[in-house]
């Protein structure tokens, strides 16, 4: 099972000091967090993609390429790549390039994005969000698998005799996850292609995540990719840890109370009760994370959000130390227990290449 972190890339004032980091500081902090993830033995770093303030990561492959050059094992991913407003041709090119530079340590997560004004800035209509995701990905899927593509669709200028370069490393397309919080159409899309399905699992109650994952699993089997248990599932999670759980609550509360998305809303206690957010000791994080398996089944990838709401870099790096030293080793061991042999690991470039060679 893979463990990692995903970042939104928000530039948020630290509510305890009132200081807002500069964009440069935040970008460098994201890189420092990625490097730390490898250092402490995590498997994945995923960056968000946004095109408006207060977010910095508008150019994911630039950042991931830089991280790739300074790491050796870390899988570089996204959370998410905007399949709606990006040109699928450019996604195909950018991520194939990254794949070569990173020696295959690349996958990506498709998403639609959530801020209304971004669509018109890129000449798109948010009401067509699902259709854009469907058509653009159908083209991207072909661009990585067919050397010469003739194509015509609703949303993009036609292609005649087009070859996306560089071709994917070893002729193997990067593995794709489809991320969605509430759209069954996206779970259906992931199932149709036999791709992975990722639920961010942060803002909503567990029973909602459960329904989405169950839908994906049953449709994955429907399309003949394997049993429901063999479908490739990823989950998010959000944690803040201190050795003593009361210290964690005391330190995180001022950040929680004014955090983007859920701040100024429910209390920390209500939110930890109703959603997967865990604020407490490493042991509490272990217990809560292990409980995800009860509603999502044996799954392949667990990503944690640790660096948002204005938390200082030093604090985030301490969180990563605890994740790497105390939490993830136990999770690896516990999740392996009782995991049926036929449940696959998350696909990597190596495993996909092996499967491709075996099929020839």
């Amino acid at each position, binding site marked *: 099972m893979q463990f990692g972190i995903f970042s939104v890339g928000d530039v948020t004032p630290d509510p305890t000091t009132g200081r807002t980091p500069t964009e440069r500081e935040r970008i460098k902090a994201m890189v420092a967090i990625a490097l730390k993830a490898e250092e402490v033995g995590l498997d994945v770093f995923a960056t968000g993609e946004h095109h408006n303030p207060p977010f910095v990561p508008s150019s994911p492959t630039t950042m991931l390429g830089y991280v790739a050059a300074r790491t050796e094992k870390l899988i570089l991913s996204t959370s998410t790549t905007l399949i709606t407003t990006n040109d699928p041709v450019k996604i195909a090119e950018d991520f194939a390039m990254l794949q070569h530079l990173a020696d295959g340590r690349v996958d990506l997560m498709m998403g639609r994005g959530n801020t209304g004004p971004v669509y018109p800035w890129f000449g798109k209509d948010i009401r067509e969000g699902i*259709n854009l995701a*469907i*058509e653009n990905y*159908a083209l991207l899927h072909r661009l990585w698998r067919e050397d010469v593509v003739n194509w015509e*669709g*609703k949303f993009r200028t036609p292609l005649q005799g087009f070859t996306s370069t560089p071709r994917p490393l070893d002729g193997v397309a990067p593995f794709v996850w489809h991320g969605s919080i509430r759209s*069954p*159409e996206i779970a*259906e*899309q992931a*199932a*149709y292609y036999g791709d992975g399905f990722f639920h961010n699992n942060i*803002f*909503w*109650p567990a029973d*909602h995540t459960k*329904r989405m994952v*169950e*839908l994906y699993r049953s*449709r994955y089997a429907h*399309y003949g990719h394997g049993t429901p248990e063999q479908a490739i599932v990823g989950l998010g999670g959000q944690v803040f840890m201190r050795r003593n759980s009361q210290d964690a609550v005391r330190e995180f509360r001022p950040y929680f109370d004014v955090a983007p998305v*859920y701040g*100024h*809303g*429910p209390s920390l206690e*209500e*939110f930890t009760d*109703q959603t997967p957010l865990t604020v407490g000791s490493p042991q509490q994080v272990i217990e809560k994370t292990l409980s995800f398996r009860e509603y999502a089944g044996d799954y392949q990838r667990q990503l944690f959000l640790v660096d948002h709401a204005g938390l200082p870099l030093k604090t985030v790096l301490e969180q990563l130390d605890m994740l790497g030293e105390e939490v993830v080793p136990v999770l690896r061991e516990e999740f392996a227990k009782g995991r049926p042999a036929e449940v696959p690991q998350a696909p990597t470039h190596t495993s996909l290449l092996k499967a491709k060679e075996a099929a020839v």
Partner: protein
Amino acid sequence: MKLVVVSAGLSVPSSTRLLGDRLAAAVGRDVPAEVQVVELRDLAVEIAHHLTNGFPGKRLAAAIDAVTGADGLIVVTPVFSASYSGLFKSFFDVIDKDALTGRPVLVAATGGTARHSLVLEHALRPLFAHLRAVVVPTGVYAASEDWGAEGLDGRIERAAGELAALMRGLSTARVPARGADGFEVVPFEERLAALRA
């Protein structure tokens, strides 16, 4: 059949709740109905949290399930600033926009004076028309003075009779069928094909 009363009254006792109860009792005399009352006052904080978080708390989720699963609805709001109360509107704002399609609804309101009675026609009826509910022709408005005057009984009976008739006749009308998990699944090939067309 399930009859649900949504009451946005704030005081205890509340004339809004009282009007809802009288309407429900009158409907119950015409059709066998299991009555459930949803008091929005008790859900006010959860409704506000739903607006900021995007998901309902447990009690609000149960109330939404009751309302969207009802065969008939009686909705009663006090008049605030020439319209339904903000709490009343917020509750219907967090319900899925298609969930009340075809649902028989009786609209009712209370106020300090009869001068606001057209709030039923100018505010409540358009809201439920937007939600594609079927609103009965008679709405019931009760001003303070109506509780001590003749006429309210007759309006309650007429409106209740209309709702009961709709519940008997239209209770089979429902939103499109969904799977056991609550999702409507369109096979992916159909979605792809629709884009090629």
